[in-house]
């Protein structure tokens, strides 16, 4: 038997054959995230005249396995800004902590209580949704430039500098865009056409009331549950208005009708 230190802890060559040194090489090119692991599916959001409605389901999938069923993917930043995360859940948790530390630091410079202070500067929220979206885009672009992207697509909902409803997206490449309605993941294919019927352009946002906006989002969540195999019927929905954020994290899809299902052909074991 070989007692040399080089062989310590190694499988014995006489039993297992020569050791394949190509395994567990640490000297190869550095690899960072190549794909998301635990993922959240679509985030959808729509602007209306007084604010934004945003929703995601509460599922975190491990591949096609519905692994975690109470994952809250809408994260509130401050009194009037909320973020919806699609993509990798661990990266979302990292970003959540990053945003928490940012919120704590922002609070240092404006700690006076927002209630009934007449001083005109004290009621200003230090970072609005637009500022936060810019910040997120810098974070995401920096990470993709390091070849170590945070595997998320994020919707930021709240209010901009002009006090108007704000909704914008940033993805793992740092790409940003904005629209009266936005959806990530499968939602971009399944929900976006429905939402675009309600708000085809920026001008039509002013005519959309809260009830219609909420109903549109709820309808879209239902369509997504019907058609997206990585979705779930429990979801979170938030309405951002000037009065604050109304966040409900334990909603259930009502009035499901699977009558259409037996008309769908061309999958599984059925013979068309």
């Amino acid at each position, binding site marked *: 038997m070989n007692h040399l230190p080089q062989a310590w802890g190694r499988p014995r060559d006489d039993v297992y054959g020569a050791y394949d040194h190509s395994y567990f090489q640490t000297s190869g090119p550095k690899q960072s995230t190549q794909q998301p692991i635990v993922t959240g599916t679509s985030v959808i959001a729509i602007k209306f005249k007084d604010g934004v409605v945003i929703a995601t389901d509460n599922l*975190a999938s491990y591949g096609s396995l519905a692994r975690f069923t109470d994952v809250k993917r809408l994260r509130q930043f401050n009194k009037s800004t909320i973020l919806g995360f699609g993509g990798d*859940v661990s990266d979302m*948790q*990292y970003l959540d*902590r990053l945003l*928490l530390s940012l919120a704590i630091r922002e609070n240092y410079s404006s700690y006076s209580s927002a209630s009934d*202070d007449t001083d005109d500067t004290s009621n200003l929220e230090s970072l609005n949704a637009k500022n936060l979206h810019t910040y997120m885009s810098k974070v995401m672009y920096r990470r993709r430039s390091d070849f170590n992207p945070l595997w998320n697509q994020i919707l930021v909902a709240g209010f901009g500098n002009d006090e108007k409803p704000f909704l914008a997206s940033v993805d793992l490449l740092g790409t940003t865009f904005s629209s009266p309605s936005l959806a990530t993941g499968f939602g971009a294919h399944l929900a976006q056409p429905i939402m675009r019927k309600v708000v085809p352009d920026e001008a039509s946002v002013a005519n959309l009331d809260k009830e219609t906006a909420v109903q549109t989002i709820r309808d879209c969540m239902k369509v997504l549950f019907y058609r997206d195999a990585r979705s779930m019927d429990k979801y979170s929905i938030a309405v951002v208005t000037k009065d604050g954020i109304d966040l409900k994290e334990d909603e259930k899809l009502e009035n499901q009708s699977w009558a259409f299902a037996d008309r769908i052909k061309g999958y599984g074991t059925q013979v068309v």
Partner: protein
Amino acid sequence: MAVSCTREVLLEELREAAVDVEARVAALQVEAWTRSSLQPRGGISRELCYDLSNSVFSPDGRNFQVEYAVKAVENGGTAIGIRCKDGVVLALEKLVSSKLLKPGANKRIATIDRNMGVVSAGLLPDGRHFTSRARDEAAQWRRMYKAPIPTSSLADRMGSYIQAYTLYNSVRPFGVTCIIAGWDSEAELAVDGQVGSGPTVGAGGKVDKMKHGGPFLYMIEPSGSYWGYYGAATGKGRQSAKSELEKLNLTEGTLSLEEGVKEAARIIYIAHEDSKDKDFELEMTWVSSLDGPTKGRHEEVPKKIREEAERLAKKALEDDDEEEEAKAEGGERMEE
């Protein structure tokens, strides 16, 4: 030969010069010491040498630099903290150094993390550095443990930090005494970044009916020693503030936060009596329980409540004065 000769001569000259310089320096020192204002402690006494350097004990076991730092604190505006049953109040007598400063600006009570506040008396820049270090410690704790730092741990870490500044002769001790107030959450704390609620069954290492969190108040001195207090006071008016705090019977734990705010304002106004000629602003912050007015956050006391507390404080002072006058009059009459 000639070369070495010259060298010897040179060396000798140098030596003489050096002796001369030494003698002059020594003479200057003696002169300075005898003239020094510290002379009452015995001229060039044993003590004298020991207050020139930090980190050096005097033969009777004192560190003079630390004691001088305490003196610096005693010149600062009064700061107090009151630990109530459902929260903590911090109050500060902020002396206005110039009429050109914007009223209400330049806040001196700082927030650490979200649930703690710090107020300091003494050298302002030292207080600001203390705050910045405390924020770093709190952020570092979050990075490590993914949860807010308990007030006791922050006090411990900051105590160690301040104490380190009494150990080296390259630094001076902090010229501040700081009061730390915090509310440690009584609710079950989520881990930072947690997305779900975890298993719904099983103990999960939790102890049933164990009480967590509550109000905390610590005061750290320039020596680095710190204690937990029911009521803490430091700065110029600390003596009168302390005697007022003692009257509140804080150990009973019955004082409510709303009462505490009023008492804090009153005590600052009483403490200000001794330096009446100077203008001051009352700065007050509080941190309450999760179901209290600040929801576990450290915030400034709302203007309305503060002004009401100030009104009551002024009234209490006037009443006291009237009482004293009446007493004095009564005394005179008795004599007659």
